[in-house]
């Protein structure tokens, strides 16, 4: 069969929907620039320390790798790169870990044991990224979709807007699709 097995609409349809939302088990995620900042937020110095140590290790094993310092600095900014050695003692360059990411499952407001952590790197555009973990490739993609770095969205980001309407001036009533 060359067509979708089924094609339903959730929001566009006027038919009644069945949507289940799962709110009871939320996770707490944070991006911290130091163990102290982490403790201040979570009150859990043990987990923060372990998360930091694990992230430091992972920065070497899963962080971006470059053959030379120039290539690394092109992506991560001047003086933001350091020389590292992998397990077979081959040297490479990678960005300095500038923070770490911690995520914990919460139950009734308390953290459940266990955590996920990852190193965080600030790229030359000011965005935070961490290594992608496995499993994000495949499907309709030929393998490149899930490799490399992923953005971190843990920081609540607010900014005072100074102006709007800077996009859309080329618009026409017919729109822009093609």
């Amino acid at each position: 069969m060359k067509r979708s097995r089924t094609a339903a609409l959730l929001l566009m349809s006027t038919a009644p929907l069945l949507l289940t939302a799962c709110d009871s088990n939320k996770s707490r995620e944070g991006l911290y620039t130091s163990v102290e900042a982490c403790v201040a937020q979570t009150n859990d110095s043990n987990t923060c320390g372990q998360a930091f140590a694990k992230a430091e290790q992972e920065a070497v094993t899963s962080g971006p790798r470059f053959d030379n310092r120039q290539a690394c600095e092109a992506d991560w900014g001047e003086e933001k790169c350091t020389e590292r050695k992998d397990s077979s003692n081959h040297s490479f360059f990678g960005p300095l870990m500038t923070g770490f990411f911690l995520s914990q499952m919460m139950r009734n407001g308390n953290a459940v044991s266990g955590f996920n952590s990852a190193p965080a790197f600030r790229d030359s555009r000011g965005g935070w990224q961490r290594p992608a973990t496995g499993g994000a490739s495949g499907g309709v993609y030929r393998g490149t979709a899930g490799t490399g770095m992923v953005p971190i969205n843990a920081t609540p980001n607010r900014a005072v807007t100074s102006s709007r309407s800077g996009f859309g001036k080329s618009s026409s009533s017919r729109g822009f699709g093609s």
Partner: protein
Amino acid sequence: MRRVALAERPDWRAKAADCGFGFHTIDDAPYWDESAYYAFTLREIEQDIEAPTEELHAMAMDMVERVVGSEQHMQQLAIPEPHRDWIAQSWRERQPHLYGRMDFAYDGTGPAKLYELNYDTPTSLFEAAFFQWQWLEDQLARNQLPAGSDQFNSIQESLVEAFSVIARRIARPFHFSAVRDSTEDQGTIAYLRDCAQQAGIECGTLAIEDIGISEDGRFTDLDDQVIGCLFKLYPLEDMFREAFGQHLPRSGIQLIEPPWKAVLSNKGILPLLWDAHRGHPNLLPAEFDNGGELPRGWVRKPLHSREGANIVMHLADGQQVHTEGPYDGACIRQTCQPLTSFDGNYPLIGSWVVGDRACGIGIREDQSPVTQDSARFVPHAIVEQARSVLIA
């Protein structure tokens, strides 16, 4: 490939209303047209459209690698200098992409010929992925199509799958954005948002005109939240040159389609593909336009024209056809491959690529050989001919 007349479903307008398909009629002119359909054989679909689409897609992706590494190619494609590094970086990071559409001239006889890639803001998506699918299911249920008829259309399934694959690489908050007053574009982003939600991704919508900028150069939504990822149904090249465009490279915003799509949504990709794969059966000879006289048998297209605007065709018989439009600037030339007439209609095959998979087609036909925004969307089916049914 045949054009077959078929009675409309009596209730299709009500069905369109039910699923929010508000633009089936545009400016009083029909857009969705199910008074006929195109019938293909499975061989035509798989060998003549699906396989070439995947092959051309791979060739196009390889070409991105070459273009972003070449100042000369970036120049040829008129990609603005301040955005070049940002575009190249987005490719090095393989920032996730979602979809694209190739337009083919095809009539069932020779190889499909690639007119162009719509790899940045392709539309006619909802009608191809959903409403066309529903048409087939309904007409099968009403016994109006040969039993076992199928359709080359797993577009919706592929979209939901694509969103779930890239979910973890999409920065939040994630907004779908289009021009506020365009019914058609708003319909397209409503549909894409529906697919994203089916993949479990929280997302909102935002008019492109409502996007804000903060003093430190980050893009904001109406709640002053910094936008993590913006799906923009709005041309990259227009964003580049508008007031906020200068802020894009340093704003930290993630775009879908990503900046590197500026290379593929550009008709300059056509001569580059032809140079690299001269004689490929699915490519038309193409070159960058030198401004000289357009010879017979050639078409001139601006690098950034959409909806068939600003095209000059110099037909083999000497006749010249111009279309109006707002585009100017550098052009390419492509040899003229006129669409074949089916009872006075000229169908253009839009072949969808979601992620990296060819997953369906939508056909738009016009009463003139240049498909424009007056075209009507006509559904299709895969219908095996009687002989092969007997063998099976």
